[in-house]
């Protein structure tokens, strides 16, 4: 994606983040390119280890260094002030001004992502005092307001409670409140509901959608749950082995995937409403599994990372990493045989 539209909030370009470990270089993110428009929700899907979190942490510049390092690429971000900057080139101080203010993040583990020894109010207020120059009292009031916003009952009382006094769903709401407290332009949600029960997940997703409408921020939504993607996303980025393998509009991705991995993924998930698939002869239906294992990030195959598990594999697949090709409608795929699918 070279052309950056004016309403682009975030444009990641050829991002490479490597980890230099004792066992070798882990190319967790190896040339990731995508963009996110204002007010849009972009879902990043892919299985465990495909580099979703590393991508998002790279955007926040929170990669642990050592061993991690952003080796290449740009992350262009338009802040609240309307200026576009390359995040990879900012100083640590500048970056701190962006974190929590322009971009904020919620994490997968609501149970461990809050500091157990401070009240939730403290933790929310911390960001507010830092970025909005409010004093502690005002910040605490705002924190209570945020809790109310995310639907926590009796927020005045709850601000003074500690994380362990709350359930997982409530903690995740606190995380959201914290993330939204400074009206960020971009919210990165790294698997915000994976650890939660379905009924709670439904609550949280509902809440996020509602808040996005109210605040108008963009969301980078990371998940491996395709159901959640279908529900939340405008557009989808599919990652595999540290690379983007497909990107496109959510409906297109689901209806006409252009990469065998996406296809496999869609087929292998059971779905509640899919009773149709069950054969009528009383025999139970079967899921169509993707064979093989998730690749080892230390020794990715030379060509297409998905090739060893791909039923469409041909010799060419192993020769070189396929390019991300435009398949029309802003839909791209990293498969040399996308036309045949």
């Amino acid at each position, binding site marked *: 994606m070279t052309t950056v539209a004016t309403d682009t909030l975030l444009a990641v370009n050829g991002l490479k983040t490597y980890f230099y470990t*004792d066992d070798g270089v882990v190319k967790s993110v190896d040339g990731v390119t995508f963009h996110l428009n204002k007010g849009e929700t972009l879902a990043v899907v892919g299985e465990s280890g495909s580099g979703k979190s590393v991508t998002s942490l790279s955007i926040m510049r929170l990669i642990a260094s050592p061993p991690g390092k952003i080796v290449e690429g740009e992350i262009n971000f338009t802040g609240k002030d309307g200026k576009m900057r390359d995040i990879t080139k900012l100083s640590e101080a500048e970056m701190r001004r962006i974190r929590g203010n322009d971009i904020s993040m919620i994490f997968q583990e609501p149970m461990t992502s809050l500091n157990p020894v401070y009240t939730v109010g403290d933790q929310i207020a911390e960001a507010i005092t830092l970025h909005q120059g409010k004093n502690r009292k005002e910040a605490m009031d705002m924190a209570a307001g945020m809790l109310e916003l995310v639907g926590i009952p009796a927020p005045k009382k709850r601000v003074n409670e500690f994380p362990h006094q709350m359930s997982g769903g409530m903690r995740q709401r606190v995380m959201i409140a914290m993330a939204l407290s400074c009206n960020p332009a971009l919210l990165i949600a790294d698997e915000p509901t994976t650890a939660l029960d379905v009924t709670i997940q439904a609550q949280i997703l509902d809440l996020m959608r509602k808040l996005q409408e109210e605040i108008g921020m963009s969301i980078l939504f990371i998940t491996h749950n395709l159901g959640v993607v279908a529900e939340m996303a405008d557009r989808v980025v599919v990652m595999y082995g540290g690379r983007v393998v497909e990107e496109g509009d959510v409906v297109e991705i689901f209806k006409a995937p252009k990469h065998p991995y996406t296809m496999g993924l869609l087929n292998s998930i059971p779905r509640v409403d899919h009773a149709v698939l069950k054969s009528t002869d009383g025999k139970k239906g079967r899921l169509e599994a993707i*064979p093989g*294992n998730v690749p080892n990030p230390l020794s990715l195959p030379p060509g297409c990372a998905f090739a060893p598990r791909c039923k469409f594999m041909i010799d060419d697949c192993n020769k070189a990493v396929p390019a991300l090709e435009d398949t029309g409608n802003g839909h791209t795929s990293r498969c040399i045989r996308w036309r045949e699918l």
Partner: protein
Amino acid sequence: MRNPTASAGTAARREVRKPQSQYGIAWRQFKKHRLAQIGGGVLILLYLLAIFAGFIAPNGLSVYSTETITAFHPPTPIHVRDPDTGRWTRPFVYGYKEELNLTTFQNEYKPDKAQRYPIYYFVKGDKYRILGFIPADLHLFGTKEQNKVFLFGGDKLGRDLFSRTLYAGQISLTIGIAAVLISTILGVILGALAAYFGGWVDNIVMRATEVLSAVPDLFLLISLRALFPIDINPIFALYIIIGILAFIGWGGLARTVRGQLLSVREMDYVAAATSLGANDRRIIFRHMLPALSTYLIVTLSLAIPSYILTESGLSFLGIGAVEPYASWGSLLTAAQEGGFSSFTDRPWVLIPGFFIVLTVLCFQLLGDGLRDAFDPRKRQ
């Protein structure tokens, strides 16, 4: 993660590789830990020196002459060139003339160039026992007849400090390990009993550990030591010290072992074994205790140095290793008794202290390395 071939016809390479146990991995991790390796290497060297002390030491444990005074004999440099001709010769040392200086109150030694004692290898000398039972009298080096080489100088009675340091190593290096072993065995057994049976067994064991931790160690040590009259055998007395150290040490260990076992007991793999019909013994010995091994290795490596230090403290109080036997602690205490003279007049008597510091340092580095090596978080 080189994965073995998986089910449905993947094309993953078949790679036959030696399977790696936990220990294999830990070893690999350990090999990356430079300081720990150095620590381990030095320790091996120290242990070898101690094991073969009899052979390497030119003298026996307590050999000195009441006629030729060698008290605080200075270290003898070994010469390899003939001072007259300047040619290489068989290594030799000079004899020393001794004189009690009544203004400085010290024995003063001057090399006597006229007396030259060549050093021979594999000389016969004082008798000793290899590994405590094979009698031998061969020494790596020494001068003929009475030994004149004092690599580390002489001690207060004029005994060769080098020999004594080596022999002392035998005690210092084993006392920690032995005490740790015994307290480990006690701690593991009692901790395991407490964890496994719970109820009143647990209660008694835990109360006992609390009692032990409530009484100050130093007090326990001294009092217990006084309990056993030393008139049996100095070596036996040492065993008693070891026993006492172990007795004091098991409490904390039992506590952690109990905790660890209780948490291992909750592990799914223990539930799996139960569901397979494994009996209690099997679960304890095959599943629960091995899970402790890494924890133990690390704790032990870190506990040994503290015992070495405790022993030196005992020596300071005069209840450690008893003459003629010596430990580094007791040698150092002898140096301590000499006060500042040990610094100014005869710094070589501090060498045993250096050995203590070195050993403790090495054990710490080693223990650190082991801890890192066994730490699952350091692995992917």
